[in-house]
């Protein structure tokens, strides 16, 4: 073989058969391993939820929807806590997404050192371990008598949702060319028109994605919520947590299956709206 041909061969393609086999094991094996450990426990919930017996178990004589039915009875407590979670998640989503949108737009329009500094501050909830935050906020809320109140939980959820909303909206703003605003103005558009006709349509996918992220974050938040609630505010994850500690009611599996369905729906909606509008 001539020397130039040797040099021309790209390095990365020169893998040995053994190297390729190892790479294949990891590239193919790891996802399956993850699938096994993540989805098997999740999927096993479905048959358990359909059990015909009175305790957490696989179905014996046949499938039954009785545990799903029990979820819809007000006295069992699942519906009220679902409502609680829904209300808290909805309010936390609206508040955090509005705040995140206002902040992201402001930081985008301005230049200088403060947007990058404040961004780090607002993304801090992603870095601070929830358990540490939980202990701290418990002390604080105890002092202000905010333990086990709706405002107390909502404020905490807003803080935890903010980074996700900011990241999603910031990502779509980062793709927005600042010269579009100048272009719109040079064409005669005043600020409201610039905002509604140019900026908003271009960040709507980001806002929608941020809302989905924020909703899901609040909807299944448990660590901090556990510390700052007891009986007055019982979110769904909290109800499940207490439920699993002191009962073997298959309704637990049923509610988990419902949660799974809701999460999958949210993810599907996100993929449909956001990813589709981002690709050419």
């Amino acid at each position, binding site marked *: 073989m001539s020397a130039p041909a040797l040099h021309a061969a790209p390095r990365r393609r020169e893998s040995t058969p053994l190297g390729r086999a190892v790479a294949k094991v990891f590239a193919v094996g790891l996802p399956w391993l993850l699938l096994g450990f993540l989805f098997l426990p999740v999927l096993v919930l479905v048959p358990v939820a359909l059990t015909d017996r009175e305790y957490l178990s696989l179905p014996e004589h046949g499938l039954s929807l009785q545990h799903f039915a029990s979820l819809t009875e007000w006295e069992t407590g699942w519906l009220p806590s679902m409502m609680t979670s829904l209300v808290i998640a909805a309010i936390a989503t609206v508040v955090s997404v509005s705040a995140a949108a206002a902040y992201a737009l402001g930081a985008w329009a301005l230049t200088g050192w403060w947007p990058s500094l404040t961004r780090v501050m607002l993304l801090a909830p992603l870095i601070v371990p929830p358990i540490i935050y939980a202990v701290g906020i418990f002390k604080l809320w105890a002092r202000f008598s905010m333990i086990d109140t709706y405002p107390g939980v909502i404020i905490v959820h807003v803080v935890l949702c903010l980074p996700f909303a900011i990241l999603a909206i910031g990502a779509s703003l980062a793709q927005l060319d600042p010269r579009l605003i100048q272009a719109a103005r040079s064409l005669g*558009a*005043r600020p409201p*028109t610039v905002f509604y006709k140019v900026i908003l349509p271009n960040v709507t996918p980001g806002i929608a994605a941020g809302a989905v992220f924020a909703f899901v974050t609040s909807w299944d938040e448990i660590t901090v919520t556990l510390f700052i609630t007891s009986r007055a505010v019982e979110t769904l994850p909290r109800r499940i947590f207490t439920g699993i500690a002191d009962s073997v009611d298959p309704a637990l599996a049923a509610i988990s299956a419902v949660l799974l369905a809701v999460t999958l729906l949210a993810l599907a909606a996100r993929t449909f709206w956001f990813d589709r509008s981002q690709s050419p």
Partner: protein
Amino acid sequence: MSFLVARDLRKTYGPVTALADIGLDVEEGEFVTLLGPSGSGKTTLLMAIAGFTRPDSGTISLAGRDITGVEPEDRDFGFVFQGYALFPHMSVADNIAFPLKVRKWDRARVDARVEEMLGTVGLADLARRKPRELSGGQQQRVAIARALAFHPKILLLDEPLSALDRTLRETMQRELKRLHRQTGVTFLYVTHDQEEAIAMSDRIAVFQKGRIVQVGAPRDLYYAPSTRFVAGFLGVNNLVDARLVRGADGAVEIEALGARVALPPGKVADLPEGPATVFMRPEDIALEPTPGEPALAIAGTVADVSFVGSFDLVVIEPRGGPEITAHLPADRTRALPVGAPITVFVRADAIGVVPNT
């Protein structure tokens, strides 16, 4: 009074003076180009005229009215940005309709105008496409159509062709000239490409470090640059340090590259005796003197010969100075090996003299 007038414009960014005492007059319907190297303040002036940059001092007026404090959206100036800045969520037609809808034109009038503009820039088939489905040249046309649709008082263009390849750029240059003639709109055009400026403009304003150093028709700038910078920036020029010597009878002689020649009377009326800069165009350098005309005879050696088509590009190393380039007929250069001695001649009336700074 001129149509667009800028007076004593100043703009500084911290220690950087982006604009220093800019004065510029543009007549209605003119095609004026702002030409200068990177960072010389062209965009800053264009942004100030568009209203996006507030000058520290000075005034801008249009048709006799002071518009220095008017917001960009109230100026009615079209602006074509370097990256086109088309609205990605709107179709081509909606992009062009945007300024018309903002002005509350009625539906039928908007549709008619959009159609007319699409025809003008030759994009009638692509009305429903999104900008990302267009090529660079097509996007450029949309941006121009959008900026012209609402009958702007002036069209400002900031290096609109710099992202296009060479052939497309030449096509678009012709297209822009046609649009200028066809619409009669005043064009203010920014570029750092001197060939583009020369090919397109009625007049060129040459920028250097935040100042306009010379304004004039392309021909005037090409043949009579007023400073060494302008002489070097327009066209390929040999710039050489020289000495100006004035005789008692008003005769002027120039001393450069170890040679000396008398200049035609009146050529350098306002230059003092002493150091000056001489420029010679490569096409004015010849292997023989023109009979009966005084010429500067430059002796040196051949440093390089390269074939470029209709002539050969010869680099000459004179005995007393820096290298100069000459365009010499190809059939004569075969006898010119690198290192051979050579003497070339420049007619006295083809020699330009500018101050040293």
